[in-house]
């Protein structure tokens, strides 16, 4: 029974990650805040800053209003060349913290595709997540730790 619980949890969380990735890759940015709890946080940082114990985010949002502001700004204020992402996720480790919460660590690659066809391995790294399981699985905290300290041109669409 325990094994079946674990497999169900693994499937639940992998499905959350997959839905998140497809939403961003399909330019459904307006759906993005819904993957977080109302107070959920989203932070992009680098492995270097993490290792040095430095708190600086590349991007940080606290709660859905701030996540929606980011989307609104991308849609109505910020100027960036048309581009798409392709997220590739793997090695998803899942751990149940309590009946309501789980933790997940997953690897990602993000390919950035420009209108010209130029494709670039834009980012690689780890998603470190704390996930609220009920009423439906959402991120309470999603930390995106990029392996590299370098970002090509700009980081507009969230990772």
């Amino acid at each position: 029974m325990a094994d079946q619980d674990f497999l169900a949890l693994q499937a639940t969380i992998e499905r959350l990650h997959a839905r998140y990735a497809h939403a961003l890759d399909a330019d459904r940015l307006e759906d993005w805040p819904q993957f977080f709890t109302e107070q959920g946080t989203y932070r992009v940082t680098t492995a270097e800053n993490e290792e040095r114990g430095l708190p600086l985010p590349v991007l940080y949002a606290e709660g859905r209003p701030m996540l929606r502001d980011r989307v609104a700004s991308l849609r109505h204020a910020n100027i960036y060349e048309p581009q798409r992402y392709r997220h590739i996720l793997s090695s998803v480790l899942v751990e149940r913290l309590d009946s309501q919460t789980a933790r997940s660590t997953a690897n990602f690659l993000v390919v950035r595709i420009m209108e010209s066809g130029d494709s670039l391995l834009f980012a690689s790294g780890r998603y470190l997540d704390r996930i609220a399981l009920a009423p439906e699985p959402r991120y309470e905290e999603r930390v995106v730790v990029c392996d590299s300290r370098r970002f090509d041109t700009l980081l507009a669409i969230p990772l």
Partner: protein
Amino acid sequence: MLERSWPAEGLTRVPYWVYQDEDVYKEEQAKIWRGATWNYLCLEAELPEPQSFVTTFVGDMPVVVTRDANGALHAWENRCAHRGALVAMRARGKAERFTCIYHNWTYDHAGNLASVAFRRGIAGKGGMPPDAKPESQAPRQLRVESINGLVFGTLSKEVSSLESYIGPEILPRLKRVLKKPLKVLGAYTQVLPNNWKLYMDNVKDTYHASLLHVFFTRFRINRLTQKGGVFVSKDGAHHCTYTEMVEDRGDAYEKDGMRSAGGSGGFRLEAPELLEQLDELGDAVSIQILSLFPGFVLHQIRNSLAARQVVPKGVGRTELHWTLFGFTDDDEAMTRRRLMQANLVGPAGYISMEDGAATGFVQRGVAGAPERASVIEMGGATIGSGDSRITETAVRGLWQAWRAHMEI
């Protein structure tokens, strides 16, 4: 000497070959980066203890910056006297001495060659002749000066002291921000798909800020109708622009029908606390951007403070090394404010992400037009300080300084 001629219009034209030409790039390395200029190296806060070091660049030249056992700062070319390999390969750390991994030649914190492995051979065999002078190819040592926590270096023996290089117009604006000991909050690198000078053009271009960066204008952070101004050093090389915290109620942008205007109803943040500024410097300035020739930028954007270092990586590629900082006596609320406002800057910055795109568009746009030129006539044809930011005075200053160094 480059065989290039400048357009007859002078300061109001910048020919596009300056961003494209390999020979220009090479000459800039010698005449500007390794020439009579002061180059930003790091923050003193990155060398907190004796025997700590960081590695960086002055133009293409790799450099090691150290604090020796007595606390003195040094900087030297990261190149072994023997075969030219990098001596320090880590980004940062602590070291009692520096050992080139190739043949174990060692250096002290000042970059002096301390020992050559097997210099006298083994058991009377091998080794260097007694009159060999490996020190003759030792890594070059830079003059180092620091000012309010910023460390600069130069290979030039002629260039004046750092303070006099910066000059009386800009120095007070630098000291205004760096009031207290600094604390590093973090760092990252933005890779720009363009020549390094297009980035410096952009930084000095006070005219573009509220037109390209729509986030600014939609939230009325910086409209040109607000009070502000620009300072340019006498030689044109350095600049500083600032905006005061004034609630803007004008409608100049709407009247001109500009894209950056909010439009009817405007655009409001659901979580505006991101922008809340505490007037920590006590002079009601909300934004100050300051640049030093050739490749240093200091920003204060509300409570976000950062040093940006420009590192050229070939004709069409530039790295921008951002180091965001606060003060050592920041309380938790101030640190939180600075981290929130980190959202405004860097590669994902609400008000800075466009810079890499815009300058990249210029690099691509001018690909077929090396002999054509930009038109830089906002504010006339002169260089000087003033209270209007609808001007390209600081851009003309950059080119005056660049031409003086390059003798073009």
